[in-house]
């Protein structure tokens, strides 16, 4: 799952070398503005074939939260 999440981040931020880690959040990436946020949500929904609920998105504070949400939604490790 991690490499799939990373691919989405790399695509949204147009950076082939980008790395992600568990407590990575918007404050850690200069270009992570609201537009990037929209692209991430849409990109992740497309990659994993799922739809986030409002509650899920509101509660996601970092990449680690994202991982947990995906696991809860039945995405395989």
């Amino acid at each position, binding site marked *: 799952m991690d490499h799939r999440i990373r691919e989405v981040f790399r695509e949204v931020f147009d950076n082939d070398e980008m790395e992600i880690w568990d407590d990575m959040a918007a404050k850690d990436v200069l270009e992570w503005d*609201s537009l990037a*946020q*929209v692209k991430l949500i*849409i990109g992740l929904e497309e990659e994993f074939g799922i*739809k*986030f609920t409002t509650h899920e*998105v*509101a509660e996601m504070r970092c990449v680690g939260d994202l991982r947990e949400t995906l696991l809860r939604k039945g995405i395989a490790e």
Partner: protein
Amino acid sequence: MLRNLWQQCREHLNAFVIQHNFEILPADPYGRLSAVLKGGRARLLRQINLELWNAEQEGTGIAILDVDQIAAIYGKTSWSDPVLWHVAKQYPSPDAIPLLVSHQVALLRAILGLTAKCLVLDLDGILWGGVIGEDGLSGIKLGGGEVGDSFVAFQHYIQSLQRRGIILTVCSKNNEEDAKLPFGSHPEMILSLDDITMFVANWRPKNENLQLIAETLNIGLDSLVLVDDNPAERAWVRQQLPEVEVPEMPNDPAQYIDAIDRQMYFETLSLTKEDRRRVESYRENVQRKVFETMSTSIEDFLTGLQMQVELKPFDEANLPRIAQLINKTNQFNLTTRRLSEIQVRSLIDRPGVYTRSMRLRDRFGDNGLTGVLIALEEGDRIRIDIWLMSCRVLGRRVEETMLGGLMRYARDRGLRYVIGEYIPTPKNGLVSDLFDGLGFECIEEEPNGARKYLWALSKKVFMEPGCFQLVDQTR
């Protein structure tokens, strides 16, 4: 308030404005009352949208993108996603964006004048089911049943396009006789041969015929839309002529209308008399071209055209067209001097100024006002200050008739010389040797290529070509 914003855009940004209208949302606490009640949200939004259409009609440099209709086409229940709206302010849902964009692009094409102009129709499998060359009139499917009826419906749609100003042509691999048979002989046929501007039926490759159609109609390949039910033909044309639009056609003729309509090839901003006239004037051009290929010599061709030239001093009625020609013509333009409409008006009836507009008619129709000549008397000579012709009428020797009119005038006034000038531009190389070819003497040449020419009226008589009937309206 919106009008104010549009005006600001136009004045300060010099921009054409595309205004989206408002989607009438599917969810409403008032339900159907939202449209029934005077103050209902749905009713108000519909009224606002109607006002937006009215504003576009005022011709103020705006166009409305019908988001309400686009959302309906997509399906309003999936058009907006409330989750994405709340978490990211995203509207509409990402899956709907391609449809929104395709409508936006169609509108942009309309604004930029890039819409297609001409439908190129295959016959078998498109206008009727079956193959006319093999099944004959009674064997093809047209009307009289489920399949036949869908072809009739498609013909109705195509005919409406033609009435709107879209040119129809036929391009079919068939014997011409077989191909034309249903037009006029089949009782369920909607289209007539009159609706078809150019009828091409032969066994040559389709890309060659498409090029012939484009050349004859004098339009770009990118103005053509090919409708063909044969996937191999479609693939071939796409490969050979990538500029031609070739829509995918479904297997079921009942879906043909949708297949073409959905592509929005022909969106425009307005419908003018010129649009409706366009089909007629293209037909006239085709007839001229056909006649040209049939003539055995240029002389025969020109004489056979039965051209009538009308020369007239400038007048108020022709002023806009004259000014348009003076400012738009680049190729057949000896001096490329531009004048405003006010400046042109000041030349009307002015002493010492010779003005003539030229209108050309031939046996196929009226080419319109297509030539302008302005000459100024300077002592014993008269100098051609502005001389231009629309590229529509090049190669017909009309320019000689215009010059002849000036020569006669100069003689009548007792002048001794006619002076011509050529001022080179990147676009008027066509006429760099015009005066030389007409028999003028070059008396001055500048390093930049500008030339001055002389015609001594006492020494030479100007011979006009005999293929014209001249109507010279001198006051």
